[in-house]
């Protein structure tokens, strides 16, 4: 087996090792963090605004404005 091949295998072992090590530590950190936050800084669920992918390229603030406009209109014309 070529020297290059062996470097590649070593790279694979080290690489996957790091990836797992990193993500396992991240899991631990998240669990710890979530526990602490829920214990000491409970602030209710995330707002929808803070979540979710913005797909259509159309501004959330715009959607908001539209909804507002329509609601406001509805309110005044009950």
């Amino acid at each position: 087996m070529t020297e290059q091949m062996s470097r590649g295998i070593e790279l694979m072992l080290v690489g996957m090792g790091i990836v797992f090590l990193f993500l396992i530590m991240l899991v631990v950190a998240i669990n710890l963090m979530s526990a602490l936050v829920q214990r000491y800084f409970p602030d209710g669920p995330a707002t929808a605004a803070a979540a979710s992918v913005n797909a259509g390229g159309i501004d959330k603030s715009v959607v908001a404005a539209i909804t507002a406009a329509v609601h406001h209109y509805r309110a005044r014309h009950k």
Partner: protein
Amino acid sequence: MENLLSLWQSTGIYNFTGGQAFMMLIGFLLLFLAIKKGFEPLLLLPIGFGAILSNIPVAGIAEEGGILYYLYYGIKLGIFPLLIFMGVGAMTDFGPMLANPKTLLLGAAAQFGIFASLLGALALNAIPGLEFSLKDAAAIGIIGGADGPTAIYVASKLAPDLLGAIAVAAYSYMALVPLIQPPIMRALTTEAERKIEMQQLRVVSRTEKIVFPLMLLTLCTLLLPSAAPLVGMFALGNLMNTCGVVERLSQTAQNELINIVTIFLGLSVGSKLSAEAFLQAKTLGILGLGAIAFAIGTAAGVIMAKLMNKFSSTPINPLIGAAGVSAVPMAARVANKLGLESNPHNFLLMHAMGPNVAGVIGSAVAAGVLLSLVK
């Protein structure tokens, strides 16, 4: 008279090389795939068009003095992929992942595709005429990360000559995820496993979503700073979105800014699709290895999920393991679709989003390893 002659000598017909003609056809093929087949159109359309423009004879649009030559500096200096990554970060919701952190391991396992195809590239050196350096192999492997900006960032650092082929492979296979993954997922799972319903995810608080990107960056700083440019810009975008106090910056990052950079990035990537660079046995190797990378990554994710399901207190549907390759959000949709086929009441989408975004982190980490070890 000699005007007419010099004009004739300046026509494309007179100057066309076979290579340029062929590469323009490749460009048109990419446009066809983007427009008619819906293959990642946001990227493949500009890439395809860039390929066409850069292969127009005489015009020299990708040579010094041409617009693509200057736009390419945005990739060369690593700016464009990082800005895209920032925008993607702003569009990413880590909620599902934070609600069920152990699914992060699926995002780790699926990166096996990266290193398997790296080895594959080296193995191909056995074939006479193929000559992949370790850098080439690493850049090819990252296709298995199923993450565009990461692949382009790594390729631009390790193997600029292969950048065009690698980016095209990465985005094409991401678009093909709905075709590549299902057979593998079915082959590796039993009907019973695919039926497994998972527990409703808890609601994640805003504070957790604000703290997470900072925690991620800190961990990256301590363990693997070579991944910090990617992870850092991703975390910045995500923080801008979750913190809620810089909404206008977050909106710009995930809309106008990412759109502008996407146009420039796509054109610049396309400008690397020159005949000299693309019309080589290497390219076939890249396309082949890319497919292998996706397949192996998918398999690794599913197998990992089966393992975890054995030992986990709460049930885990192995299908969501396939989402670990990232390719957000297609891979998660695929898992959801197969789940519904086996059990019409089984909505896996949110459960699959966890490993899906974890896969983005996983491939950024793998990229960091490659960037720091492959010199």
